[in-house]
């Protein structure tokens, strides 16, 4: 930073004042001092001034000090004797010290300033790179690069033109300095342009050797290395974001593909089975005149049952799809969990028959945020499940208790239990218990639907089971207070 004129004048004034003070001191206080001591004192003061205020001040001071030395301390006193060689030696000594010391200190100061500027630039580049690598995808990255540049490098405006998108990303409105045409032109020239007087700088952004776009900044000029580093960082960040995005897409596509295949297999089997029964029954009825009345009745009964099964399957698959797609609107209201349990038990009244059902609800349970009709569907599914898969003389136990911000509702049966490999599959669509497939009618959609309903509430469904001891299906529902504290 250049010192102002006033500051300069002050520096000269102070330098002359020092010469005056030294002269005054030795003339008045120590009049008996010898000339060498005075000369050394001048020399030291010139050294000090040259180090602090530079060459101009110290050279002027040297001249003044030479005259003062000659006039006041060299015989003949009170007279300027230009011809005296002592004079010349003193002047030369003062000037050499002034010039050398000022130059040394100036270069030291310059180096220190350069070093701190470099440090600042590196720090900015580091912050810039951090800012860029935080972006998870290319779109987000592109929309923050210019803002990052303006924030981090304190330039007035920044614009990034990308060839593959044919689009300019700007920190602000279009400015005449950073117009789209210039950005495109730089991209074609593939060389940086520094317009120092106008404070504009253009830089091609390279990915390897390929130019992929142009970066333009205006407002202040950044060092060339910094600008080039910014370009490289942008290229790396874009490559990185693109790779991350692609990885995510590939992974999602692969999982989606697997799921579709598994689902298609399951749907094929689930639909083909009733279709097979129906087709065989119908073709038999059509082609076999020898059927007796009871056989005809049996075949028609099968057709009737299997069309019901197909209908149920289609309905449940539709509901599952709606739940999966998040298209089911929940009417969440605070209710005691007892509402859900009693509604479910009422619904299962007929199918439970004489089975003993124990209900244990912990005292002082907070209300849950729940769509009672939907939650009832889920709990009914668990109760029906326990009812179907455990011997009728064994009780079913329903419990509800608080666990953190959730109420946990469990349905325990004393059936044969579910072994480990099956536990993982049991919530899968169309899966049916391997021993139960022989005897129990079902579509394999009940538990997945129950699970989806619970998850739509923000809860989770889980299963613990022990062989020959029975199974416990549990699900959580968020309590009303939890919603209030975490809006």
């Amino acid at each position: 930073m250049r010192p102002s004129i006033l500051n300069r004048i002050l520096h000269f004034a102070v330098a002359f004042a020092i010469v005056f003070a030294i002269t005054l001191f030795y003339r008045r206080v120590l009049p008996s001092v010898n000339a060498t001591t005075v000369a050394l004192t001048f020399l030291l003061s010139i050294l000090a001034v040259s180090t602090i205020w530079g060459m101009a001040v110290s050279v002027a001071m040297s001249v003044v000090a030479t005259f003062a030395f000659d006039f006041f301390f060299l015989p003949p006193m009170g007279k300027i004797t230009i011809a005296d060689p002592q004079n010349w030696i003193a002047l030369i000594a003062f000037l050499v010290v002034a010039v050398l010391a000022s130059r040394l200190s100036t270069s030291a100061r310059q180096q220190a300033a350069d070093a701190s500027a470099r440090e600042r630039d590196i720090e900015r580049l580091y912050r810039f790179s951090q800012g860029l690598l935080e972006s998870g995808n290319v779109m987000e990255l592109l929309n923050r690069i210019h803002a990052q540049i303006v924030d981090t490098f304190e330039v007035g405006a920044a614009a990034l033109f990308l060839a593959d998108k044919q689009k300019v990303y700007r920190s602000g409105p279009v400015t005449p300095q950073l117009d789209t045409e210039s950005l495109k032109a730089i991209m074609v020239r593939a060389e940086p342009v520094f317009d120092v007087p106008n404070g504009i700088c253009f830089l091609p952004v390279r990915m390897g050797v390929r130019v992929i776009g142009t970066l333009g900044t205006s407002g202040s000029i950044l060092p060339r290395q910094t600008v080039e580093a910014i370009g490289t960082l942008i290229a790396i960040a874009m490559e990185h974001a693109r790779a991350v995005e692609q990885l995510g897409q590939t992974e999602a596509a692969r999982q989606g593909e697997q799921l579709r295949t598994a689902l298609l297999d399951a749907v094929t089997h689930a639909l083909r089975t009733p279709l097979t029964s129906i087709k065989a029954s119908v073709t038999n009825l059509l082609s076999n005149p020898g059927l007796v009345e009871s056989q005809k009745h049996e075949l028609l009964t099968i057709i009737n049952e299997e069309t019901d099964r197909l209908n149920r399957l289609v309905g449940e698959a539709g509901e599952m799809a709606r739940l999966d797609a998040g298209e089911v609107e929940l009417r969440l209201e605070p209710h005691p969990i007892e509402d859900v349990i009693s509604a479910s038990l009422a619904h299962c009244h007929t199918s439970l028959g004489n089975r003993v059902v124990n209900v244990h609800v912990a005292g002082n349970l907070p209300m849950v945020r729940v769509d009672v009709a939907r939650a009832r569907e889920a709990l009914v599914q668990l109760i029906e499940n326990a009812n179907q898969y455990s011997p009728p003389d064994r009780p079913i136990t329903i419990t509800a208790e608080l666990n953190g911000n959730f109420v946990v509702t469990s349905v325990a049966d004393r059936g044969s239990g579910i072994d480990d490999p099956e536990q993982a599959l049991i919530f899968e669509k169309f899966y049916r218990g391997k021993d139960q497939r022989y005897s129990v009618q079902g579509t394999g959609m009940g538990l997945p639907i129950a699970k989806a309903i619970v998850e739509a509430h923000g809860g989770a469904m889980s299963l613990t089971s022990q062989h020959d001891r029975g199974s416990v299906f549990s699900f959580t529902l968020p309590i009303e207070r939890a919603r209030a504290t975490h809006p």
Partner: protein
Amino acid sequence: MTSAKVLIVDDEPQIRRVLRTTLASHGYTVVEARSGDEALEEIRHERPDLILLDVNMPGRSGLETCSEIRTASDVPIIMLTVRNSERDKVQALDAGADDYVVKPFGVEELMARIRAALRRVAPAESIPPFLSADLKIDFEKRTVLVKGQPVRLTPKEFELLRQLVANQGKAMAHRRLLQAVWGPDYGEETEYLRVFINQLRKKIEPDPRNPRYITTEPWIGYRFERPHSGKSANKSD
């Protein structure tokens, strides 16, 4: 009306119900099994004349069950499968099934397949035994000896071999072989022949990859011939 005993093996109760009624209405005696393990048990006790075997069953699959049955019995097996792909059909035949029916099927088709599978072609004309250095086939006693060792053939394999030997030296067209062995409703199922010829070659050829008895007639069919000594035979397909 026959009174052959059919074992139905399927895990789906409704399918067993339909098949039970259908087969009973066509005069068959019906036994049921819900799984591969049950089927193996039933075969020992009931000695069925034919097995309808579902491919997709939990636990021991239909294919495994089929291979297991084949280790001890030549009983005709018809597989019930839901997937109508070439690979699945070949897998079923490879496992030792005589035939397969794709679900959902019409009853007429199933009955035709059952009749064909049960059909044991009566030896109308008796064929003299085939004797060579390493292969001896006695059609009267239904025995095959390869290098002196008895080899077990399924009825369909034996019937196929019989047709080929009876027309020794002549190229037998696919359709003719299929109709002769499986019945008049067949003709397009060349994959059956491919699988069964492969199995026959594995059983009777000294080098199944380089067959000398049963050779392939490209685009036409197959031919059985007495190997020419010293001359290498046609490549298998």
